[in-house]
């Protein structure tokens, strides 16, 4: 037997988040995009609902461990994205930052950063990408040199989500100890540490969340702020991508399904040539096609999250969700916009905004090309498929 039903608790979670998002987020989605205004209130609300600690163990103040945390994170992401796709970005840091700090953070970091992260008082982000390498995470150049009481970090991170509003970020740097390269290590850096400077990037979408560049100029980091063992930085975050790649897909699918629902309403009420435009197969079929594809992709995303909750391997499935979900979503929202005619293209309706936002999810956490290469590697074998393009 196989159950594809959500539990009563999950249905309640969906309902609570939907009510909140429809009442509080949807009405100001456009305004926040126009003014590049960060939805900090949404982060606090998620904390109030116990959502920020979904990937954190009970010992550390979270609620993970019930065997359904990741499906729940997916539900919240989908619901937020229906009303404000940008606000759903919080559901990317909930699992990845929560996991890293919970499992690999020192006692001091947990106390100083994980507790306020869960309570909604602190926002901690992630900085992996650098100007010279995004998809190729292993090529990073940031340097961390070991000192007597910690490290000194110099380099630059780009494409950092929520840059201007973060209180701290987890960065990844190449560590050196006594002139020996010791691999890639993760560190937590408060944004107000001396030597940290940040600037905003102008993007097509996700403007309320924003991305940016953060420069680190000989920044002193205490040893306690190292996340995990030296040289072991990438392992945790790469495992985290197996979760966030699915969440990104669900975010885009949530926004797309909402657009399809709005298009159905429009098709029923907009008349042309004396009848609703929904009476035309040219309108019916795109709606039917997009709904069918999105609903299938959505179930596949939850299946993948359920695998993660059960502790099963899901790298292949997560990468499949990552390239296919946002691609289907962007195509669906585009067609929904066109089915609304010129109105859909205006800034009076949320369709063009969702489309701009969803394109960002196509690129985030690995471009479609990288995601396909991961699927291919899992299917054909690591001995033949190499992500760096070299011949095995």
């Amino acid at each position, binding site marked *: 037997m196989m159950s594809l039903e959500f539990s009563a608790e999950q249905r309640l979670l969906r309902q609570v988040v939907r009510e909140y998002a429809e009442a509080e987020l949807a009405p100001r989605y456009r305004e926040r995009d126009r003014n590049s205004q960060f939805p900090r209130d949404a982060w606090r609300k998620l904390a109030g609902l116990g959502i920020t600690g979904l990937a954190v163990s009970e010992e550390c103040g979270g609620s993970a461990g019930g065997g359904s945390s990741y499906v729940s994170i997916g539900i919240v992401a989908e619901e937020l994205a229906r009303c404000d796709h940008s606000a759903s970005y919080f559901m990317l840091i909930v699992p990845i930052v929560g996991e890293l700090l919970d499992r690999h953070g020192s006692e001091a970091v947990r106390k100083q950063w994980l507790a306020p992260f869960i309570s909604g008082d602190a926002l901690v982000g992630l900085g992996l990408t650098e100007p010279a390498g995004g998809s190729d995470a292993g090529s990073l150049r940031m340097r961390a040199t070991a000192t007597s009481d910690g490290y000194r970090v110099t380099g630059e991170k780009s494409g950092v989500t929520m840059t201007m509003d973060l209180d701290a970020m987890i960065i990844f740097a190449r560590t050196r100890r006594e002139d020996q390269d010791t691999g890639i290590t993760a560190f937590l850096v408060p944004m107000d540490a001396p030597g940290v400077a940040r600037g905003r990037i102008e*993007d*097509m979408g996700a403007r309320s969340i924003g991305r940016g560049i953060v420069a680190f100029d000989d920044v002193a980091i205490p040893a306690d702020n190292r996340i995990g063992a030296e040289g072991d930085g990438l392992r945790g975050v790469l495992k985290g991508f197996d979760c966030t790649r699915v969440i990104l897909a669900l975010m885009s699918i949530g926004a797309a399904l909402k657009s399809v629902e709005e298009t159905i309403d429009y098709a029923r009420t907009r*008349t*042309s040539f004396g009848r609703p435009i929904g009476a*035309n197969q040219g309108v019916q079929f795109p709606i039917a096609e997009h709904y069918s594809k999105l609903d299938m992709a959505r179930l596949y995303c939850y299946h993948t999250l359920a695998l993660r909750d059960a502790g099963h391997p899901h790298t292949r499935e997560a990468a499949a969700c990552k390239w296919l979900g946002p691609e289907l979503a962007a195509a669906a929202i*585009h067609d929904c916009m*066109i089915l609304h005619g*010129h109105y859909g293209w205006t800034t009076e309706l949320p369709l063009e905004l969702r489309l701009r936002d969803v394109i960002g999810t196509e*690129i985030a956490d690995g*471009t479609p090309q990288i995601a396909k290469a991961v699927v291919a590697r899992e299917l054909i074998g690591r001995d033949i498929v190499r992500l760096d393009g070299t011949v095995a």
Partner: protein
Amino acid sequence: MDFTDPPEVGQLRERVRGFLGERWPRHYRRYAMNDTVSRDLQAPEVTLEGVDRAEIQGFIRDLGAAGLLGYGIPVSAGGRGGGPLERYAVESELAAAGAPYPSIALGTVAPTLVWLDVPELQRRFIPEIVNDGVEFALGYTEPNAGSDLGALRTRAELAGDRYVIDGQKVFSSAIHYAKYYWLAARTNPVAPTRSAISLFILPSDTPGIEVTPLFTMSGIRTNIVFLDGVEVPAANLVGTQDDGWRAIGHALAHERYTAMMAAPLSAAVDACAEHLADRLDEPAVAAALVRMEADCRAARLIGQHAAWTAAQGRPITAEASAAKVLVTELRYRVSRTILDLLGADAVLAEGDAAAPAEGQFERMYRHAPITLFTAGANAIQRDLVAEAGLGLPRAR
């Protein structure tokens, strides 16, 4: 089969290119893929860094003074003579360079005044268009009359020697900068659509016209227009009262293959190839560029074929609609493919120092959707191809 231009059309193309070479700065050509300069910059509130508005307006006037506007309009009506092929040649060269020209005045207004054979209106308006590059705004669409234009409700009632117009229009994109408004209104409240609609020319600043901006995904402004007791002299009625529907259909067919050009797409593909110069040895990149270039060439031929069909005096409804569908859907595909090829930087917008091509590819993607529904939604164009071109049963 001969796909080359007749000699006189080829010479005309050379003349336009020569003029562009001298008068149209190369750095403005990066805007070709977006109509940014040709459309937006005529509007007073739009500014672009490094673009001189006075230079743009001077360019349009010089275009007229150089005798390059008004091809396809007979000399007797105030035009430059020649036919659809000449007109297509001039406009496709201008579009390829992203250069501004009064596309509605040349594509809809002047040809309709010629087709309806209305000498007085030709005398009043065509010289301004041809010599000075004066632009018009279209006033067709209403909140409940888009694809189903026959459902329009704006009323025009004759009162003595003038008409009084009341109603609401939407998506009148150029009215905030165009000198005149080309307006469709219902002059007969009871007759069927085909014998109930009339066309008028109004100065855009006529009292009673209220314009409210409406912004779009690409940043381009369009407008909602309220008409409240707007008075227009009866002499500004275009053609015969209640007979505007035929003229609208005629003009739309011509707009569909001239306003939707493939030439700017080739400019975008070239710019993309230039941008990816160090990645051309990647098979996926090369294949995508070749595919786009091949599609653009095919689309240009289709547009040219529609112009040739018009030049033969044959009906062009199906040809023009097919060209419109192909070119506009290609435009969307090209803009999307370029984003894919550029990778993560593709979403960086104008104003970000790292944005490829100063953000013009990103904007091209946001601009592409408009062509899918402007000048008749593509769903309607497919119906027209099926009915007028293939003789299939009427869909509506």
